[in-house]
C-alpha cells in the first residue's frame, strides 16, 4: 500500500496561529513527498477538526496522518482514536508539536514558522515508515493487595471489599490502626480519634472479603498490572491466632516489662502483648527480643496459664504467595525525631515532649489517664507549643508538614480544657489553616485564650538568668511582631514534630518498582491530574506515604485509589502499549547486558534458547535496552532506526 499522507496544521485559536504562519506551513507540507492533502484549521481537536481527517481518509484514500498542533501528551490519544474510527491502524499517525516547541517558546514569527516547517517535515518523513501495531490486552486479577493498615489502608480496603472484591490487607505491626489510633482528638471537629476509627477497624477484621495479615511484611513482588505475584512474610508471633481469644491471662502472667511503642514509651507493656485494648485482631504477640524464654531458655509462664493452648514457641516465619491484579500502598509516615535539633533540648531536658507523646498523655486511655503531668507529677501551669520542628528547614525537611499548625492549636484547646488556669503559648512562623473549619478553629483557640507569638524560638534552655526563670524551661525567641528578643519561662514544651517518610520507603519503592522523590516520599504519576497512580501501572498510593497530609485528605485519597482499582477490576482487562522493544533472537548473543539495564525488570534470559526475551506487558518502551544491546539485536517498535533516521533527515531537510 503506497503511503498517502494527510497533513493538518492546527491554529489552536491564536495559541499557534498568532506566532506560526500556519497557512505557509500547510502550503509547505504540500510540497513534501507522498503528501496528498494538507490543510490548516482553527481547532483540530474539535469534532469538526477530527471529521476533516476522517473525511480525507475515506474520500481521498489518505492512509498516513500528521497533525501539527500541541503536545502528544495532550491529544495523541484523541487523534489516534479519530484515525482508528476512520478505519486505519492508530499507529499510522504522527504528531508534530508546533505549540509548546514553536509558538510558545519564541516571539519571532519567522523563527517559529521555520521550526514548525522542520517539525512537520520530520513528522511526514517519519510517518512514511510507520508500521501497523496492535496493542495487547491482558486480564486483570480481581484481587487487590493493600500495604499498610493505617486509616488510608483501612479506607481503601473497605471501599474495595464492600464492592464484593477480595482484598489482602498487610500490616507489619501486630494490629491495624496506624498513627490515627494514637491520636486523642482530631482537628477541627474534635471527634475522638479512636471512636471514629475503631468501628472501621472492626469492620476490616470481620469483613468476609478482607484477608487481614498483621505482623506481616512484603517480601518480594513480581509481575505487572493485572498480574502481580507477591510474597508475604508472616512473622512468627508465637501465638496461634486461631486459638487465642485475647483473654489476656498470658499478659498478666508475663514477668517482663518493655517500653510501649503505642504509648510512645511513656508506659510499659509486657513481652507478650496486645498493643492497645481495641486491637484488631485481638490476639497476643510475643516480642522475641524481650521474652525471657527466648533470652534465657526458661519461663514459658504464658504457655502454662493459657487455657486454650494458643502459645507456640516453635512457630516460625511463614512465607506465603498471593496473586493480585492491583496494589495500593498506604505505608504512612514516621514522626520527625526532634533530638536532632539540640537547641530544643528534646531527650536532654525533662518536660520537653514530642507531639505524639503529648497525644498519648492527653488521651484518657493513655499512660497518665488523660492527665497532663510534669516529670514531678504536678500539673504544668504554663506550656509552650513550638511549631515547624523539623519542617520548613533546609537542614531537616524543606517542606511544610501541613498538619502541625492545626494539631498544635488542637493541643492548646485541649490544654485549656484539661488544665485549670493553664497559660498556653503558640510559637509559629505562619499559621497554615487551609481546610474546612480550620481557620474558624484558629479563631476559636484565640478566643479561648491561647497566646500566639510569631517567631521561631532560638532555643529552649534550663539555664536561668533571673530568679523567676529558676526551675523552669525558658524559651528564648524574638517576638517578631514587636521586634524584641524575649525569654519566656514555662513548665512544659511541646514540639510540633513534622511528618517524614518511613525509614524504609526507598526499599519499598524498589520492591514495587515505583519512584520516590528527593524527600523519599512516593512519587505520584502526575502531581495534579493523577495524584493516586504511580508510573508503574497497577500500583497506587494514598496517604502520607505520598507526602504530608491530614486525615480528611488521606481518606479522600484512599477512596480515590480504591476507585481507580475498581475501574480496572470492573473492566477486567488492561491494554498494553504496543511500542515495546523486541529482541531479534537470531542476532541475540545472550550476553544479558539488557537484563541488567532494564529499569522495569521486563527482560529475562531464557536458559534453554540462550537468548533474552522481553515481557511486553512489563516493557514501558523506554529504549534503554535498544541503546545498550552490543549486537544491535533489539528493536523498539514505533522507534525503529529507519523511522528515527527519516525523522532526523526531515528536520535537516
Amino acid at each position, binding site marked *: 500500500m503506497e503511503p498517502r499522507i494527510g497533513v493538518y496544521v492546527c491554529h489552536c485559536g491564536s495559541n499557534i496561529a498568532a506566532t506560526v504562519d500556519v497557512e505557509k506551513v500547510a502550503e509547505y507540507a504540500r510540497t513534501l513527498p507522498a503528501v496528498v492533502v494538507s490543510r490548516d484549521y482553527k481547532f483540530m481537536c474539535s469534532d469538526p477538526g477530527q471529521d476533516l481527517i476522517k473525511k480525507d481518509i475515506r474520500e481521498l484514500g489518505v492512509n498516513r496522518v500528521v497533525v501539527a498542533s500541541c503536545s502528544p501528551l495532550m491529544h495523541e490519544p484523541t487523534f489516534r482514536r479519530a484515525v482508528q474510527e476512520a478505519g486505519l491502524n492508530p499507529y499510522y499517525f504522527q504528531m508534530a508539536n508546533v505549540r509548546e516547541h514553536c509558538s510558545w517558546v519564541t516571539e519571532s514569527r519567522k523563527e517559529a514558522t521555520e521550526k514548525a516547517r522542520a517539525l512537520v517535515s520530520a513528522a511526514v518523513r517519519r510517518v512514511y515508515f510507520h508500521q501497523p501495531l496492535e496493542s495487547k490486552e491482558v486480564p486483570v486479577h480481581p484481587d487487590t493487595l493493600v500495604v499498610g493498615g493505617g486509616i488510608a489502608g483501612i479506607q481503601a480496603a473497605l471501599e474495595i471489599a464492600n464492592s464484593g472484591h477480595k482484598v489482602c490487607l498487610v500490616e507489619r505491626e501486630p494490629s491495624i490502626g496506624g498513627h490515627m489510633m494514637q491520636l486523642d482528638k482530631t482537628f477541627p471537629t474534635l471527634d475522638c480519634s479512636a471512636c471514629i476509627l475503631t468501628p472501621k477497624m472492626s469492620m476490616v477484621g470481620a469483613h468476609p472479603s478482607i484477608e487481614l495479615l498483621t505482623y506481616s511484611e512484603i517480601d518480594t513482588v513480581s509481575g505487572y498490572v493485572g498480574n502481580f505475584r507477591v510474597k508475604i512474610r508472616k512473622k512468627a508471633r508465637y501465638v496461634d491466632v486461631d486459638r487465642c481469644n485475647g483473654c489476656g491471662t498470658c499478659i498478666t502472667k508475663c514477668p517482663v516489662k518493655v517500653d510501649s511503642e503505642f504509648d510512645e514509651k511513656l508506659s510499659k507493656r509486657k513481652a507478650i502483648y496486645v498493643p492497645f485494648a481495641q486491637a484488631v485482631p485481638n490476639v497476643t504477640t510475643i516480642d522475641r527480643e524481650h521474652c525471657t524464654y527466648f533470652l534465657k531458655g526458661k519461663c514459658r509462664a504464658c504457655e502454662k496459664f493459657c487455657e486454650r493452648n494458643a502459645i507456640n514457641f516453635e512457630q516460625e516465619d511463614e512465607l506465603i504467595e498471593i496473586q493480585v491484579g492491583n496494589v495500593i500502598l498506604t505505608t504512612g509516615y514516621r514522626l520527625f525525631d526532634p533530638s536532632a535539633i539540640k*537547641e530544643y533540648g528534646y531527650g536532654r531536658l525533662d518536660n520537653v515532649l514530642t507531639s505524639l507523646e503529648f497525644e498519648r498523655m492527653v488521651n484518657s486511655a493513655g499512660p497518665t489517664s488523660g492527665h497532663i503531668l510534669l516529670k514531678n507529677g504536678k500539673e504544668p501551669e504554663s506550656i509552650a507549643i513550638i511549631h*515547624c520542628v523539623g519542617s*520548613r*528547614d*533546609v*537542614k531537616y525537611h524543606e517542606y511544610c508538614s501541613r498538619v502541625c499548625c492545626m494539631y498544635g492549636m488542637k493541643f492548646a484547646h485541649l490544654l485549656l480544657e484539661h488544665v485549670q488556669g493553664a497559660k498556653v503559648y503558640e510559637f509559629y*512562623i*505562619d499559621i497554615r489553616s487551609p481546610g474546612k473549619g480550620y481557620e474558624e478553629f484558629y479563631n476559636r483557640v484565640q478566643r479561648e485564650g491561647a497566646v500566639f507569638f*510569631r*517567631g*521561631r*524560638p*532560638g*532555643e529552649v534552655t534550663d539555664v536561668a538568668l533571673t530568679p523567676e526563670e529558676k526551675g523552669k524551661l525558658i524559651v*528564648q*525567641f*524574638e*517576638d*517578631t511582631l514587636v*521586634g*524584641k*528578643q524575649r525569654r519566656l519561662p514555662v513548665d512544659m514544651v511541646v514540639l510540633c514534630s513534622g511528618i517524614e517518610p518511613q525509614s524504609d520507603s526507598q526499599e519499598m519503592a524498589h520492591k514495587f518498582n515505583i519512584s520516590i522523590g528527593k524527600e523519599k516520599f512516593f512519587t505520584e504519576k502526575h502531581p495534579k491530574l493523577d495524584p493516586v497512580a504511580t508510573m508503574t501501572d497497577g500500583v497506587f498510593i494514598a496517604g502520607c506515604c505520598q507526602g504530608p497530609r491530614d486525615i480528611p485528605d488521606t481518606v479522600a485519597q484512599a477512596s480515590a485509589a480504591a476507585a481507580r482499582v475498581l475501574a480496572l477490576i470492573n473492566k477486567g482487562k488492561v491494554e498494553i502499549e504496543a511500542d515495546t522493544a523486541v529482541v531479534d533472537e537470531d542476532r541475540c548473543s545472550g550476553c544479558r547486558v539488557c537484563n541488567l539495564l532494564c529499569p522495569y525488570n521486563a527482560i529475562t534470559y531464557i536458559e534453554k534458547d540462550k537468548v533474552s526475551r522481553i515481557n511486553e506487558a512489563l516493557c514501558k518502551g523506554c529504549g534503554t535496552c535498544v541503546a545498550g544491546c552490543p549486537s544491535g539485536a533489539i528493536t523498539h517498535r514505533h522507534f525503529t532506526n529507519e523511522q528515527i533516521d527519516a525523522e532526523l533527515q526531515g528536520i535537516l531537510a
Partner: protein
Amino acid sequence: MSDIPHTTFLDEVAALPACGKINECIQCGVCSGSCSTATHWEYPPRKVIAMVRAGMKDELLKSNSIWFCVSCYLCTARCPRDIKPANIVHGLESIAIKEGYKPPTTTTTMYRSFAQSIVDHGRVYEFGFMLKYFLRTNPFAALKMLPMAIQLFRHGRMPLAPKQVKGKEELTTIINKMGEGGDR
C-alpha cells in the same frame, strides 16, 4: 510609582560574599531568638534583614545594630533557610565603613587595635592592644578593667612585654598580599 526606595541596597548586600540567599528569608526570627547580644541591638537581626530588603539603608547603617555582632554564628547555624545572617551583618559593617557611616559604638576601634596587634607581633599582645583601644576611646574606662588586668598579670596571662611569633616576615608577606597591611 511607589515610594519604596528599592532595591539597589538589597542588590548590593546580596552581592556580598555568601549573602546571596537574603531573598529567601522567611522572617521566622530564629536568628534574633538565638542571638547572644540581640537585647542590645536597636533592630534585632531578623529586622536588619527586613530593613535591607525594604531598602532602609540610612536608618539601618546609622543604628547600633550591626556593630554588636560577636560572630557566635548561632543565627547562621540555626537559620532554616541557610541565609547566613552573620555574614550579612559583617557585610553591612564593611559597607558602612566604606561609605563613611560613623559607627555609634567603639567596635571598629576595637577591631583596628586588634588587627594592628596581629600585624605588629603576629599574635595578640593583650596589654598593648587594650591600652591602645582605651587610649583611642575612653582612657578612664581602663580603670574599670584594672582589677581583671591585675588578676591576669598575676597568673602570667598578660605579660607586659610583647612576644613575637616565629617567621614574622612570612606572616607580614601574607598580610601584605591580602592588601590589609597598611590599612590602619
